[in-house]
C-alpha cells in the first residue's frame, strides 16, 4: 500500500513522461513535415528550371507545376494547426494571414482565372515563393536537428528583404491582370434578389484585397525586420564574448 506522498510523486513522474513523449512526437512530426516541405518546394524549383531551360519560355510553365504547387501550398494549412496547439511558438494570426493569402492566390486567382496563367507576374511570384519556402523550411529542419549552418540562417533573415517586396509586386500585378476577365465573366457573383438578402461581386472584392495589401504588407515586413534584428543582433554579442 503506497502512501499518498508516494502516489503523488508517481503521478508527477507519469505526467513528466507524458510531456516528454508528447514533445518527442511533436519534434519527430515537425522534422518530418519540414523535410517533406523542403523536398516539395525543391522539386517545384527543379521542374520550373527544367521547363524554362527546355522550352526557353515561361508560357505553359504554370500548367506544368500547377498540381504540385496546389498540393504543397494547401498542405501548409497544417502550420496554422501547429501554432494553435502550441508545438510551434508563433502567432496563429500571423501564420493564418500568410497561409491564407497564399491559398487565395493559388486557388482563387491562378487556378480559377486561366487567362492570366502565362503572365510574367505569375512567374515572378512563383520564383519568389520557391526561394522563400526552400530557405524557410530548410531553416526549420536544421533548427530541429540542432545543426543550423550559418548560411541558412543568413539566407532566412536577409533574403526576405528583397524577396518580400518582389513577391508582393508579383501578386498585385497578377490580381490586377485578372480584373478584366473577372468583370467580363461575372464569376463568383451573387446578385439580388435572392432569399439570403446578400450580394457579392468578386471584382470589387479583388479591389478590396489589393487595397488591403497597403496596411498588411508593412506590418508583416516590419515584423520580419524586427525578428532579423533580434536573431542576428543577438548572435553578434555572443561572438564578441567568445
Amino acid at each position, binding site marked *: 500500500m503506497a502512501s499518498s506522498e508516494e502516489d503523488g510523486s508517481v503521478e508527477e513522474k507519469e505526467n513528466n513522461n507524458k510531456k516528454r513523449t508528447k514533445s518527442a512526437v511533436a519534434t519527430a512530426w515537425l522534422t518530418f513535415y519540414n523535410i517533406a516541405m523542403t523536398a516539395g518546394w525543391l522539386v517545384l524549383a527543379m521542374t520550373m528550371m527544367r521547363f524554362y531551360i527546355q522550352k526557353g519560355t515561361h508560357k505553359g510553365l504554370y500548367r506544368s507545376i500547377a498540381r504540385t504547387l496546389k498540393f504543397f501550398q494547401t498542405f501548409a494549412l497544417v502550420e496554422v494547426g501547429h501554432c494553435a496547439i502550441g508545438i510551434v511558438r508563433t502567432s496563429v494570426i500571423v501564420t493564418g494571414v500568410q497561409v491564407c493569402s497564399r491559398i487565395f492566390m493559388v486557388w482563387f486567382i491562378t487556378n480559377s482565372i486561366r487567362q492570366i496563367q502565362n503572365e510574367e507576374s505569375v512567374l515572378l511570384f512563383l520564383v519568389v515563393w520557391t526561394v522563400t519556402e526552400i530557405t524557410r523550411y530548410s531553416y526549420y529542419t536544421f533548427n530541429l536537428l540542432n545543426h543550423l549552418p550559418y548560411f541558412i540562417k543568413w539566407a532566412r533573415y536577409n533574403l526576405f528583404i528583397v524577396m518580400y517586396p518582389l513577391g508582393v509586386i508579383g501578386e498585385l500585378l497578377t490580381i490586377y491582370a485578372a480584373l478584366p476577365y473577372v468583370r467580363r465573366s461575372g464569376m463568383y457573383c451573387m446578385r*439580388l*434578389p*435572392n*432569399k*439570403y*438578402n*446578400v*450580394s457579392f461581386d468578386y471584382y470589387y472584392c479583388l479591389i478590396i484585397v489589393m487595397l488591403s495589401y497597403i496596411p498588411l504588407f508593412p506590418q508583416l515586413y516590419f515584423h520580419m525586420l524586427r525578428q532579423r534584428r533580434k536573431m542576428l543582433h543577438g548572435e553578434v554579442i555572443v561572438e564578441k564574448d567568445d
Partner: protein
Amino acid sequence: IRHSYVEILDAKTKDKLCFLDKVEPNATIGEIKSMFHKSHPQWYPARQSIRLDPKGKSLKDEDVLQNLPVGTTATFYFRDLGAQISWVTVFLTEYTGPLLIYLMFYFRVPFIYAPKYDFTTSKHWVVHLACMCHSFHYVKRLLETLFVHRFSHGTMPLRNIFKNCSYYWGFAAWMAYYINHPLYTPPIYGEQQIRLALIIFLFCQIGNFSIHIALRNLRPPGSKTRKIPYPTKNPFTWIFLLVSCPNYTYELGSWLGFTLMTQCVPVAFFTLVGFIQMTVWAKGKHRSYLKEFRDYPPLRSPILPFIL
C-alpha cells in the same frame, strides 16, 4: 502630521519625473495623480498609470498612500496610457451612428440605391418592423448609457473609438443596405416567421434591460464595488442561476431574433461576430468572478447555460 515624500520615475527610462514634498500620508493615488498633473500638464490623471514596480500592476485611484508598502519617501513608476476618452463618449458615439445610418437607408436617401427609388419606402411591412426594432434597440442602448450603466473605468484609449465606430457603423450600413433594398426578399415562412422573431426579440430586449437594472442595483451610486449578482423578483433575472453574464445571453437572443425577422446574411454575420466577442468577454468576466469570490455558484456558465 508626519508628511510623506513622493518621487515619480518613468517606468521605462527610470528618469526622475517629479518630486512631491508635503504629501499627506492619507492622500490617495488619485490625489497624487492630480499633483503630478500640475507639474506635467500634458499627462492628465486619466492617462497616468502609477505603479510600485515598473512592470507591475497599476495602482487604483482609491489606494491610500500610508496603506501601501512604502517608506516615508514613496517611489512610484509612471507609464503613459496614451490619449484617453471617456466610456460614455465612446458609447454615445458608437450607438448614435447605427441609429442614424440605418434610418438613412430606410428612408432611401439619394446616392445609395437607383435614383428612381430616392425617398421611397419599402412595400414590405417587415421592413418597417425591422426599422422600428433596430431603432428601438439603439435608443435603448443610448438611454442605458446615460441613465443606467455604472462604469468601473472612466476612460479607455482614444484609438478604441475609431475601432469601435468602424465596427458598429460599418455593420449597420451593410445590414441596412440589404434590408431596405428595393429588391429585398421577405422571410420565406412569412407572417409566422416574423411573429416568432418579434417575440424572441422583445423578450430578449426586456431581459437584457432587466439584467442591466439588476447589475446597476448591485452598486451604490459613485462606487466601484463588485458583488456577485443574484436572481431578483424579476423573472427575467432568474437566468442568473445558470449564467454569469446573462446580459450577453439576452443580447445574442435579440440579434438571433432580428436575423430570423429579416432573413438577411449580413445580419447573421453581425450576430456571429458579436457572439464571438461577447463569449470572450463573458469567459473573462466569469474567470474574474471565480478568482474574486470563493463562494461563487458552481452551476453557472459564462454565457450559454451548461454549454459555454
